[in-house]
């Protein structure tokens, strides 16, 4: 489902105009992004838990440099779905987009 479909459906469900729902979604996204940027995790009921974790330095072989390199650490977003959502969607048949 693409973004515009999402907005359409959301606007229908909330009864709010599309422009407003779009702004609301954007505010939500901005808050979530900034919190994750600060390293703070959070849970959204019925959806799941967002958190950050740091991938530590790794020694890997790089074919580009043709030798071992130390990959620097990296902070990434981790998402874990809520159990209700997981169960509900386990055996769903989806139509291909």
């Amino acid at each position, binding site marked *: 489902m693409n973004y515009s479909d999402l907005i359409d459906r959301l606007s229908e469900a909330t009864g709010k105009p599309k422009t407003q729902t779009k702004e609301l979604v954007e505010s939500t996204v901005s808050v979530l992004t900034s919190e994750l940027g600060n390293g703070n995790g959070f849970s959204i009921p019925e959806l799941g838990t967002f958190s950050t974790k*740091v991938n530590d330095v790794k020694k890997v072989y790089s074919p580009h440099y043709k030798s071992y390199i130390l990959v620097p650490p990296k902070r990434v977003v981790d998402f874990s779905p809520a159990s209700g959502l997981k169960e509900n969607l386990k055996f769903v048949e989806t139509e291909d987009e």
Partner: protein
Amino acid sequence: MSEKITFKQLVELISSQAEQSHDSTYSFIQELVGIIESGLRSKGSVSISGFGKFELRWMNERTGVNPQTGEEITIPGQNKVVFKPYKSLREHVNRPYANMEPQVLSETPEDNDTGPISPAVFGTKKEGPSKEKPKKEEPEKKKPLEDDSPFGLAPPDDEDPFEEETAKKEKESEKEDDTEDEEELLVERNSPVGFPSLSGSDEDEKDEDFLASVFNLSDEIEDEHEKEKEADDSADTPPLSVASTSVDKKKGIETVKKAGSFNWSYAAAAIVVALVIFIILFLMMRPDPAPEATVLPETTEQELTEPADQAVRVAPEEPDPVIDEEAPPEPEIAPPVTYEHDVASGETLWSIAEAEYGNPYLWPLIFESNPDTITDPNVIVAGSSINIPSIEDPQNLTPEESEMVAEGYYSLYQWSTVNKPDEARNFLWAVGKFSPDVLDKYSGEVDSNHLSFAKRQ
């Protein structure tokens, strides 16, 4: 890093940003979640621009083990929900580590006897092969938010893999080159100090600065490698510059140890060393101009006039002084028509002959013409000045010129019998090639084996 905010706080933040009431924000989020679920159910993926994409991924049926009973069970094929952050979110989250680049080590797979990434490294991270000491199993206490880490990493374990690595590296460093030392020093310095602190949530800022400095050094290391290579390439003949590159390397290691940008002191050191070399070479050059002073006016003047006349004059002069002395010490024995050439760094007699004559095989002629300056035919000193006999038509040597070349090869032969006896006879053969007369002239003095070799081919 593993701090959490409550959903209530989240709602507050969104409400204030969107200028909505708490309740309406709350219900809005509920609706949003519902739409995401139904979107996943019907379409399999939901994308939120500027944030990320929720997707259903199919996991095939697989066999697992019931953790309680230990019996095998079949885990049916099913969907799982995944979230893929988009670029802006990814980059925003990785801000603290954004400037870091991979640090190239000089190890290649052949260097490690134990294989690409040795099992011992992974062993300490995950379970525990026999090598592990008991204490490593203790810090299994996991930080709250990192339980789900796919690597199963408990951060305190980090110290160990790298300590093992450095222990191995220290053993290997005895076998490996000096060039390895820089990287090993760096890794050694990192492990005891840097890696354990990676885990601490309170120490993020310290980590960032330290790690930033570690990984920014990768640029410096590469720069130093390049500087060293350049220094090595440009100066091969003077023995002094060999010393200077090793000095540079040592200075390079020192600057790396200090963990800062010390480019200025490194550059200053290089300049000082270069100046010293210049001064010494200059002093070396000084004694030469004196004896050449007398020869120079003659040779340059003669060169300006027609060389053809000189060739005639050379012929009668030459045979006598050459026959009398095997190793002509005086400049006048050398053909009068010569000009000076300052040896540049990287030149060889071979390359000079090729440049001047178009035929590098004539190089013994130059050797012969510089008995004072060139004692070892394989070594000419950059910055020194040598005489190059001028040859009018290198493709067709006059008999006199051929003889001179042959004489040159004979001198080489003599040098070779002393220093490199195995190759001597080849030079004698060359003598014969350029002038059979000269070969005959010396036939009484040479080793008979060499002579028969030279005459046979």
